């Protein structure tokens, strides 16, 4: 059987009309479902002109919502970064009992609805919940306050860094670490000079996704938020409130920030993916040369 060169190039021998149809459908679908709504956000945001758009950002509650979002992401992302590196290090480099369980648990926030994660905190820290009375007696407020928002954000963004690093570290194995240790490096040096440089792009990639989710989360924070304007409203909650007030220009102006964040994440993500790919190719090449 002979395969002609053109088919190899395109990777298929389907007739032209099949290819055109499939491509048209996917492009049309992406345009309709993704590009159009994104366009609408910016169109609506600027509908009453640039001044109306900028005015939306001068509102005290808008500033507070942006601060709240940055605060929640600013705490959740570094914590999940530390946890993610520690967990993937443990999972990829060591064998221990309950490893499978740990991997499954890391995935838990992916598997359950964000609303449920919010409700869990109500059940645990609410006045009718397990620790509610104790916290009350000690004057600690968790839900309907800033700590609740941060906890809920940490919960939903929990898996992002770890999930990104586990396969990467498993693939890399621990030979390089062994080599470093046999050359007299201590654990800390091994981590900073061998492990971390190897996974740095993966870490960045995980952080990027984690951050995007932390800033965009609606369901979980909506449950634990006090719904006070200028209080615990994060950006997505503020957008919802503005929209319900028939204040659509301000709502879409705020939404445009989140949309921009999405675009930046997307660009950063594809750049990092390219970087990751190059890295794995070059490491493969270096391994091949070592063998030969």
């Amino acid at each position: 059987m002979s395969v002609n060169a053109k088919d190899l190039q395109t990777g298929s021998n389907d007739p032209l009309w099949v290819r055109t149809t499939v491509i048209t459908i996917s492009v049309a679908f992406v345009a309709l479902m993704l590009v159009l709504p994104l366009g609408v956000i910016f169109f609506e945001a600027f509908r009453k002109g640039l001044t109306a758009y900028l005015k939306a950002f001068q509102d005290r509650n808008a500033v507070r919502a942006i601060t709240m979002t940055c605060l929640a992401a600013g705490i959740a992302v570094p914590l999940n970064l530390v946890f993610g590196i520690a967990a993937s290090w443990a999972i990829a480099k060591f064998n221990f009992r309950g490893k499978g369980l740990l991997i499954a648990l890391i995935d838990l926030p992916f598997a359950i609805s964000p609303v449920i994660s919010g409700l869990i905190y109500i059940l645990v820290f609410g006045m009718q919940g397990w620790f509610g009375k104790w916290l009350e007696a000690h004057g600690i407020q968790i839900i309907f306050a800033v700590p609740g928002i941060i906890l809920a954000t940490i919960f939903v963004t929990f898996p992002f860094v770890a999930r990104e690093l586990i396969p990467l570290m498993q693939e890399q194995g621990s030979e390089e670490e062994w080599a470093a240790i046999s050359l007299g490096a201590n654990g800390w040096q091994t981590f900073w000079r061998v492990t971390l440089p190897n996974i740095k792009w993966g870490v960045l990639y995980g952080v990027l996704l984690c951050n995007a989710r932390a800033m965009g989360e609606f369901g979980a924070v909506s449950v634990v938020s006090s719904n006070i304007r200028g209080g615990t409203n994060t950006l997505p909650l503020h957008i919802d409130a503005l929209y319900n007030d028939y204040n659509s220009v301000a709502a879409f102006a705020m939404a445009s920030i989140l949309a921009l964040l999405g675009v930046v994440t997307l660009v950063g993500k594809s750049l990092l993916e390219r970087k990751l790919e190059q890295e794995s190719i070059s490491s493969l090449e270096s391994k091949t040369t070592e063998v030969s």
Partner: protein
Amino acid sequence: MTVNRINAFFVPLIVLSLIGCSNSNSPNAGTTGSKTVKLLNVSYDPTREFYSEFNQAFSKHWKEKTGDNVEIDQSHGGSGKQARAVTEGLKADIVSLALAGDIATIAKQTDLIEGDWQSKFPNNSSPYTSTIVFLVRKGNPKGIKDWGDLVKNGVEVITPNPKTGGGARWNYLAAWGFALHRELGSLEALKDSSKKAEVDAAIAKAKSFMGDLYLHVPVLDASARAATNTFIQRSIGDVLLTWENEAFLAFKELGTDQVEMVVPPMSILAEPPVAVVSKNAQANGTTEVANAYLSYLYSSEGQQLAAKHYYRPRNNDLLSDEQKAVFAKLTLFQLTDLVSGWDEAHEVHFKDRTGVFDQIYQADRK
């Protein structure tokens, strides 16, 4: 060095998060000489605009009277959800919700509010009232004038789910009251034990009317605001059952070229109540100011502002003729004309499976 590059990435992140922390802890700058008190009013969705303005008026009044500053935070959401939040520990000094049942739930489940809360302020602790009216498409093409017109062929009715929304329960009970009144000629027969047979027959007819009505509902939204959005923004349905104040607000925000308001000859008197959350107010040292806040709702200025935001004030004498003309005249019946209170309303109408709503709604869909 690689290590440095990585540090350059992590360190700012950590610093950033620390800055965030310290910012949130910065104390409120108070002016010297006078105290600044904070109040939290936990309310439902449609009152947002009213309370924004009332809070400013009250702050000014309190400052003049006592020399102290009072800052009032507002929290808005679905009435039932807000009641739940207070039950679970949201530190409200004041609740102002859509129905007495929601405040009663807080009082029943916790010791935050006294059991006799509804007698602490005049008029069942409801400083303003509202009623349920219809919004129809411009020109009223389906000719909807009264509750009976809602079940005409081809009419689509938008009303939220009475099991999840406070406003939706008023809609439901308004229609129920209309149906009973149509059968009995007067709602007084309901309390008259000698007319039991007659009343039972009327209830059966009213149930079939309600079943018919909810067959005309294409989308059962979760809350009043969501239903308003369905009707106005998504242009679904011929008539929206809604609070009078919401109908006015929708006009103001969206213009009168798309919809018009129809006031039926008879509807329910909706009494959104208020209460001081005593235990929280005690802990915050705000008992006095919280009570003054609620009393001020009954003052001339409070009533004027309520009317401005399309809530029917309790004291009509405080209104100008112009303001009075805003509110159409209609016969209003009370919740207590139909049932003894929200407990009974819940038990008879909205309870899972055995309630009238579940019976008629499930039966329809079979």
